[in-house]
Every structure is written in structure tokens, then in C-alpha cells.
């Protein structure tokens, strides 16, 4: 039987796929021209056509989600319920798309500079984003798996994009091997859950809602077998890996350090946001209790917050510091996942948005600096740059303060909403751990600010290595949203809450 197909619900995903294909074709058929600063005619995409197509695709997808959904407020399903559109998923899709747009903007100048094939690069970004969007609409274990792979495999390639640098290749290979390992673990979990549903209800199905119902029913009746619990644990571990939650975080620093900076920036925010949403969709609510995952997630969240922050404290490499701190931010989102009430889910959404823009702003500064000739590896490389370029320094300062959780910036309200939801749900000690660890984070987030402003400016002028207007746009956009969300979080918080209520109502 051919299932009912409503492609109208899938327009954003289809737009992204189409954009990806068009970019690949454009890259193949457009002539390579000699650029102004490159007489050899070896420039990829000299007129920014690939960049344009990519941005148009992403913006169109975003615009459709924002304006094209019509008046329907409830969840809509198609493909026999394999694909769901609800406000919760749409909200996270917006966050992921915005993060991707910023990531693309940050990539552009660097790509030209490195003379990488822009078409393939952008196509991979678009396909990975498609994967994220499918993941956010997935209501079926098969879809979760396929979506996760569609998100991950392009990321493995993108991490290794700078393939003549050992660090980048290492990042790609590590990510690939460990990511596949995690996927295998998750699949094992899905298989066990599938088996459980088949045995328990007599109807083998991969539908997540059926799994959740069966687990809840079996748990209530006290006849949930060990292997079903095991399945739940393993399935969650696969997702926790993508969140780089401790102890499944080992790949994070190496991969983040080795990958191209723009890709690091993008993955550290969008992948985390999407994975947190999937965790909420699958494990939010009573199924967490039924599967006895609460305690495990509690410990993982606490460890993630603690180790992420303490490790970040000891880094001298700025990207590594941001990598470890992104581990910690994953931990805060996990606290919100634990408190999976509508307030908790809304908090995760807001936190993801705040973190996306705050972190993007920080990475944008690093990329901008490298554009204008200051390649930043360690904190020492930042010395005095704030004095030299006060606005760039200010952006760095704002993003660091937001990531720290200092009011009135976006990060503060993210943390605030998360902890408030956690306390309401009774996770007082976890909140205390969260507060203490974010106090630790102050120490290392202050470092860039201190170094940038309180050291002597480097002598002489550096040579700019390429145009940077896209980076500037991303920089300004990220920092404006960070400040804007902080000064007026009311509307966004309401929006997050409405979106989260859609999820909770659907449970």
C-alpha cells in the first residue's frame, strides 16, 4: 500500500535537498573564472553563486517554516505518521536553520582562501541540515536513524575538509569511527526496543509512540523486561554521543580543534540543539521514568557540566576551550531534558537559541580575526586585539558574557529558564551543581576578555587574507541577537513555551 504523501509539509526539507543538488550542478557546470586576486583562474565560485544558492535555499526553508505553515496549530502527520510537523519541531528547525545560515556565512571567505570545492562543501552543509530537519520531524526509529546519519555523514566529511592538514584529517577520521560506534550502539538499542514492542504487543512496529506506549504500559504493569531497559539505555547513548555528553565526549575536543573553524562553530551549536530536541521528543516525559533513565541522565548531566567546565578551565587553545565549554553547555541542555515539562522543553529551546548565537559570535570573532590576519590558536594570540579593534573585542566580550550567563544577555535567560524548570521539577541538587559549575565557567570565559583588553596591542599591521563581509554580517547578526534576546527575552520565551506545549500536549 502506498502511504499517503503530503509533500506540502515537507517543503523546507525538499527545498534544502533541491538547493544541495543545484549547488552541486552549478559547481560542476559553471566556468571557473580568473578572479581579481587570483589570475590562475583557480578560484571556486568567484561570483558567490554557490554561496547565493545555499543562502537562498536556507532562507527559503526558514521562511516557509515561519510563514508557510498556514493556520494549523496542532501536529500534522504524513507518510503514515513517519513524518510529523508540529510547533516544537518547527521551532528547533528555525534555530538549526539560523545556526546553519551563520555557519555558511562564516565559511565563505575561508573556503575561497583555501580553494576548496565550494559546491561540494555547501551541498554537504545543506544535506546535513536536511538531516537535522528530518530528525526534528522523526516519529519513527527508522527515521531517527536515517536522519541522524544524514546529519552525521556530511559532518564527518566536513570535519576532514582541510585534508592536507593532519589535524583536520584526524578530526574527520576520529569523528567517523567514534560516531559510527555510537550509531551502532544506538541501533542495537533500537533493535532491542523493536523486539520488545513486537513481543509485548504482538505488533512489531518502529513507531516511537508505539514504543513509548508499550514501555509505559509494561512499566506500569511491572513487567518491563531488562532488555527493553537496555534498549532504552543504548538508544539514549547514541544521542548522548551527539550531544558530546560525558563520558561520550572524548571525540569533541580533537574534532572541534581539527575541523575548519566555521564547521566547528556550526556543529557545536546546531547538532547540539537538534539532538536535545530529539532526546526531548523520544525520552521526554514519563518514559524516562519508565525506562529508569532518570538517574543515568542525572549523573551524565552532572558529569557533563562539571567535567566540561573544569576541562575548559585548563585549556590554552581557544578553540579547545570553546570545545570543552560546548560540552558543558550540552550538560545544561540535558538538565532541561531531564525536566521535560513544557517549561523545561521551552527552556531547552531558548537555551539552544541563546547558545547558538552566543557561540556563533565567539567563533565569528576568531574567524574574523583570521580574516584580517591574526590567526588565533592560543590565548596569547588574542593579546591586545581588543585594544586594537575595540568593536571586535566588544563582540567577543558580549559573547563570552552571554555564554557565562551574565544578565542581561541571552545566555542568562537560557540558564535561568533551565534552572527554574529544573527546580520546579525537583532537581534542586542538579541546579546547585549547574550554578556552581557555571561559576567555574566565569574563570575561563573571562580570559579572552582580559587578554584582549589588558595586554599591549601587537605592533604593526597584519596582512588581511581575504574579504570578510560575510563574516562581518554573521558577527553583527549573532551579537545583535545575543543582546536582543537578553534585553527582551519575553516574546521569545513565550514563543518557546507555546512550541514546547505542542510537544507536551502530543505526549
Amino acid at each position: 500500500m502506498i502511504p499517503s504523501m503530503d509533500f506540502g509539509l515537507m517543503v523546507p526539507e525538499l527545498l534544502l535537498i533541491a538547493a544541495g543538488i543545484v549547488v552541486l550542478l552549478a559547481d560542476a557546470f559553471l566556468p571557473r573564472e580568473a578572479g581579481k586576486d587570483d589570475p590562475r583562474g583557480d578560484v571556486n565560485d568567484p561570483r558567490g553563486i554557490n554561496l547565493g544558492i545555499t543562502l537562498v535555499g536556507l532562507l527559503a526553508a526558514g521562511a516557509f517554516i515561519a510563514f508557510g505553515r498556514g493556520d494549523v496549530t496542532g501536529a500534522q502527520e504524513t507518510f503514515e505518521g513517519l513524518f510529523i510537523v508540529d510547533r516544537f519541531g518547527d521551532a528547533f528547525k528555525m534555530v538549526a536553520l539560523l545556526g546553519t545560515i551563520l555557519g555558511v556565512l562564516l565559511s565563505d571567505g575561508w573556503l575561497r582562501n583555501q580553494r576548496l570545492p565550494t559546491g561540494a562543501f555547501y551541498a554537504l552543509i545543506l544535506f546535513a541540515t536536511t538531516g537535522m530537519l528530518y530528525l526534528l520531524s522523526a516519529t519513527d526509529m527508522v527515521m531517527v536513524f536515517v536522519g541522524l546519519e544524514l546529519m552525521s555523514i556530511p559532518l564527518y566529511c566536513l570535519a576532514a575538509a582541510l585534508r592536507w592538514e593532519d589535524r583536520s584529517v584526524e578530526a574527520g577520521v576520529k569523528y567517523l569511527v567514534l560516531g559510527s560506534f555510537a550509531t551502532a550502539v544506538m541501533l542495537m538499542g533500537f533493535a532491542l526496543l523493536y523486539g520488545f514492542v513486537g513481543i509485548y504487543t504482538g505488533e512489531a512496529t518502529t513507531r516511537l509512540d508505539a514504543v513509548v506506549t508499550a514501555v509505559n504500559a509494561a512499566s506500569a504493569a511491572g513487567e518491563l523486561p531488562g532488555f527493553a531497559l537496555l534498549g532504552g539505555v543504548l538508544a539514549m547513548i547514541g544521542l548522548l554521543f551527539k550531544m558530546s555528553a560525558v563520558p561520550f565526549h572524548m571525540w569533541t575536543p580533537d574534532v572541534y580543534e581539527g575541523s575548519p573553524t566555521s564547521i566547528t562553530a556550526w556543529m557545536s551549536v546546531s547538532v547540539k540543539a537538534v539532538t536535545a530536541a530529539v532526546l526531548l521528543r523520544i525520552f521526554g516525559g514519563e518514559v524516562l521514568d519508565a525506562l529508569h533513565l532518570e538517574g543515568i541522565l542525572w549523573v551524565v548531566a552532572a558529569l557533563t557540566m562539571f567535567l566540561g567546565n573544569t576541562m575548559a578551565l585548563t585549556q590554552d587553545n581557544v578553540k579547545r576551550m570553546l570545545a570543552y565549554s560546548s560540552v558543558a553547555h550540552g550538560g545544561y541542555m540535558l538538565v532541561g531534558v531531564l525536566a521535560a515539562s513544557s517549561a523545561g522543553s521551552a527552556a531547552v529551546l531558548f537555551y539552544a537559541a541563546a547558545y547558538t548565537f552566543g557561540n556563533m559570535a565567539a567563533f565569528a570573532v576568531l574567524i574574523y580575526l583570521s580574516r584580517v590576519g591574526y590567526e588565533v590558536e592560543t590565548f596569547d594570540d588574542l593579546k591586545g586585539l581588543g585594544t586594537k579593534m575595540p568593536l571586535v573585542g566588544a563582540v567577543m566580550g558580549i559573547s563570552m558574557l552571554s555564554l557565562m550567563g551574565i544578565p542581561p544577555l541571552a545566555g542568562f535567560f537560557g540558564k535561568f529558564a533551565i534552572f527554574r524548570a529544573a527546580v520546579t521539577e525537583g532537581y534542586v541538587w542538579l541546579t546547585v551543581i549547574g550554578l556552581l559549575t557555571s561559576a567555574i565557567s566565569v574563570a575561563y570565559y573571562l580570559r579572552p576578555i582580559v587578554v584582549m583588553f589588558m595586554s599591549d596591542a601587537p605592533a604593526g599591521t597584519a596582512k588581511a587574507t581575504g574579504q570578510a563581509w560575510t563574516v562581518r554580517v554573521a558577527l553583527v547578526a549573532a551579537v545583535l541577537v545575543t543582546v536582543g534576546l537578553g534585553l527582551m527575552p519575553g516574546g521569545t520565551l513565550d514563543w518557546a513555551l507555546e512550541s514546547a506545549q505542542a510537544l507536551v500536549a502530543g505526549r
Partner: protein
Amino acid sequence: MDPSVLALYACCLLALAGGAGVIVLRNPVHAAISLLFTMLALGGAYAMMQAHLLAALQVLIYAGAIVILIVYVIMLLDQGREEVPHPFYPLGVAIGVPLAVLLVVISAPAFMGASAGPEPLITGPEDCTNCESAAVMVKKPDGSLVEASGCEDYVDTDNDGFTDCNDPDCHDNQLCYGTVRAVGGSLLGPFVLPFEVASVLLLAGIAGSILLTGRRPKELEDVIAGPAIAPAPGPQVVSGEGRGQA
């Protein structure tokens, strides 16, 4: 014990042994051959579970194509003669083996049927749960064709000892588990969306290979000697350097 079940277990054990061989064997070619055994054994296991199409595909694609590709890669990289150092990790064994045992012990009930879990609601030889979602036309005893609405339609129509699903005389109705039609119906039926998304995944794979193997920029070529993905010799410098020096 049913001989087919015994054969199933044998195949599974062989697959496991092959997997262990991939890890333990030091010569890359040997390891690849060991992987071949795993693939073949899995094919056998599928066959024992009546998934004949899957078994054939497993042998054709994995054993026939992918493993052979791996062997080619090994030979092209000229790694075949060298024995890859394969240190033995006592700690890994100390953690891994008990974990494996624990996993088996915990998940065994799933494969042992109902001994730990509740009674399955539907049992018996007519249980064709895996076909139900495909559109099935079954021949009623009176000879009329009707659309099956569930497993109860899977009956032995002509009383020859085979249920219709497996009745060699009943060609129109070979829609059951593991058959080409069943797999195809499943992929283009309820699972059409993941099937199509998987094709995007393949496209992404192609884009990835363009990115990773495309022409290298000219001015950088002079700087870098040797193959792009060749492992750097010398002591490991993998992590650590950024993490240190507090």
C-alpha cells in the same frame, strides 16, 4: 532443537568469530578475509530466518562488493605485506569481555522468547506480523481474491501443508517475510520516506567524496609532500598538545 535453529546459531557464532578475527588478526588482508566470513555468515543467518532476499543481497553487496573493495584498497595502499601492529590491551579485555557477557545476559530474554517478558499476545505458526503492512491479496477457499486485513488471512488455502506465505504453488501470494515483494513493498510502502532520505544520504556521500578527493590547490601542492591521507609517521601527536600546558 530444530535443525534450522541450530544452523542459525551456528551462523551467528561464525559471524561473531569473524568479527573477532577482524580485530585480532594483524595482517590487513587476513582481517579483510575474516570480515568476508562475517558477511557470509550473516547472509546465512538471514537465510535461516527466511529472509532470502536479504540473504542474497548480503552476499552480493557486502561479501561480493564491499569486502572486495576493501581488499583492493588494502592492496593499493600496499599495506598487505606489512603486519599492522596490534597491541593487546588487557584493560580493554578486562572491561570489554564482562560487558559483552552482561549485554548478552540482559538481552538474552529478547531472543529466548517469553521466558523473562510477558507472553506474546499472538503466537503460533500463522503469525505473519511482518507482512501485514504490505498490500496483500489472498485467495479465499472459494477462489475469490480479497485484500488481506491482517494475519488471520494467512491461512493454508489449498491445504497442502504450506501457509500461503510459503506455498510454492501460490505465486501470487508470495508477499511474506523476506521475499522480494515483501521487501520491495515495505521499502516503497510504509518505509518509502526513509528509503528516499537514504538516497539523499548517498548523494551526500558523493558530495563528500568530491570534497575529500578533489583537486588540491596548486600553491599548496608544493608545500606538502606525500599522499594526503597518509598517516604521519612518528610518535603519536593526536591529542594532548592543546590539552596540556595549563
